[in-house]
């Protein structure tokens, strides 16, 4: 009896390891291939002699990209959008979520519904587009000519993240808040000194979600930013890919790298920041999903 149990367990364990390894390799392979392809020589990339490890190593694709001003422009723009966009969203979300977490807030249900409804129904792309165009006109009229501010201020703000924060704030014991108020803390101090330190991990998670969606933002940035020099990295990558057959973008025959390598190098540069911070934050988001996934 005991013997049979062990065998079935062992078989299951082996199957788990094998299939998970296969899946993990599938997940990772495109990234490894991209890195290898960005530093492999021309013939290796063009004629598919590359499987995993780079051959005929060259770094000219990278240096060609680094010498391109458009690339640095795009990178700076993405950093700008991510930095200010995240600050803006986190700031507003924390304030709003704090107010929503208070039982004494009047019309609390109404305000919650106001947020949640946007998760159920959105007006759609075209009405949003017309709305952004109108906003852009207003922004230009008051002297904000840089469309990046439009993207920072008007876009983003996911209701889901605010609800995550609100749920976490609701979990802070009211005794601690009362103690702070007895000690003479103002509303702002209660939020700053009591609520924020007690919800560190959820705030880290939400900040991360906001920052990643800002870093990865593409569609509206492309629609709304009319000046090509203001485009973020994702728009730049896409435009390069769309001009793939454009002779100007191809690498000359004398060059040691394939034109593909330039695009691969571009992709590598765009994912490096995420890869660098990813291991540090990975432990936070599992928690975030568990806390906010289901509200009872």
């Amino acid at each position, binding site marked *: 009896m005991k013997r049979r149990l062990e065998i079935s367990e062992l078989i299951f364990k082996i199957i788990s390891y094998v299939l998970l390894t296969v899946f993990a390799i599938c997940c990772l392979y495109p990234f490894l291939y991209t890195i290898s392809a960005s530093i492999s020589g021309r013939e290796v990339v063009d004629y598919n002699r590359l499987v995993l490890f780079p051959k005929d190593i060259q770094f000219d694709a990278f240096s060609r990209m680094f010498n391109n001003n458009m690339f640095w422009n795009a990178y700076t723009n993405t950093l700008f959008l991510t930095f200010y966009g995240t600050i803006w969203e986190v700031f507003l979300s924390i304030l709003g979520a704090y107010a929503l977490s208070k039982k004494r807030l009047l019309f609390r249900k109404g305000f919650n519904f106001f*947020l949640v409804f*946007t998760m159920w129904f959105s007006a759609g792309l075209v009405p949003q587009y017309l709305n952004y165009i109108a906003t852009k006109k207003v922004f230009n009229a008051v002297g904000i000519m840089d469309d990046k501010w439009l993207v920072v201020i008007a876009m983003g703000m996911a209701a889901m993240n605010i609800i995550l924060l609100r749920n976490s704030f609701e979990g802070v014991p009211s005794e601690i808040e009362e103690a702070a108020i007895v000690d003479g803390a103002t509303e702002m101090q209660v939020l700053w000194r009591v609520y924020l330190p007690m919800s560190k991990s959820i705030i880290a998670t939400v900040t991360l979600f906001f920052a990643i969606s800002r870093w990865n933002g593409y569609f509206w940035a492309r629609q709304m930013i009319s000046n090509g020099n203001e485009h973020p990295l994702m728009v730049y990558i896409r435009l390069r890919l769309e001009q793939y057959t454009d002779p100007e973008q191809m690498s000359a025959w004398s060059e040691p790298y394939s034109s593909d390598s330039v695009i691969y190098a571009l992709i590598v540069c765009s994912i490096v920041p995420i890869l660098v911070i990813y291991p540090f934050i990975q432990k936070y988001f599992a928690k975030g999903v568990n806390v906010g996934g289901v509200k009872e």
Partner: protein
Amino acid sequence: MQMNVSDYLIFDAESGTYIENPEQAVRDDVEKHHWLNVLRAVIKDWRLYLMLVPMLAVFLLWRYLPMYELLGCFKVTDSVKPVAEQYYSGFSYFRTLIAGSGTLTTEFWRAFRNTFLLSFYGLCFGFPMPIIIALFFNEIRSNIMRSVYQVITYLPKFMSTVVMTSLVMMLVKQGSLTSGMGIISQFLVNIGAVTEDVAFKQGLMNNPSFFRAIYQISGIWETAGYDSIVFFAAIIAISPTSYEAAQIDGAGKLAQMKYVVLPSILSTIVIMLITRIGSLLNVGYEKVLLLYNTNTYVTADVVSTFSQRYGISGTMTGLASAAEMMNNVIGMLLVIGANTIARKASDVSLY
């Protein structure tokens, strides 16, 4: 407001104790919502309400104001005049889309069908994957090994749609005189899954019959690992004593799966399934927009991309809004319906 304890508690002769007076609670509620008292409460707590204002303003200006533009669905739009100055044309756009006879009607129905099919296939193939992966994660006892697998499989979720679609397009690109096809196309040709003609000359991205497969496989690659978090959390919450009890009763691994693990995570599965069904009509426009091209409209065009093509790239804003509004209204009804069912079935509501 004069408070008197006797207003709140009344003597209940039946039980012989004081109970709460329900009438007073109602009176209190009316009192609380009298506009003067509301104003007083707001002024007293003005800091709290001030905190709420910026967030509400953002939602009002850029989430709710676009809904006003939906009036364009019922008006003759020429995109030069603001919506307020255009005159009503009734339901003509809806009629054109649903029951017309031109290409717009056929394209709309094609897009609607594709929207449904893309998410339906996602439900069939994409939904079970995270559950299976979570079951496998549970088998790995070493914490370090499990973390390694988790870090790797969650990773694609954090890549942007642009990076992901660019990679897909590079990996299955067609060949040319000066360069070979993408590495995955090459692999598929080598194992005989596709002919050289299709993969090299035409390119898989330009062949409509491959679009759905590419969409689903890249979708699984992107989200299966990350989506397993919810299920894995449910599995590790199972008490070890349940396994022990099953083992004593002589249950093998498969029997343990069937009688211990699956029943314990069933409520999570049901909730996730219902959410998924609720969002059957919300196909992300960005991914389709980045992956499709004129050659693959037949299988790839969804309602939101249809709307983008005619309303943003084109000038038929009224018609395009009407198309997407129909889709979104049905989508919203599905979400609300799914949420109601979830609440009834498991006492757990999603929002």
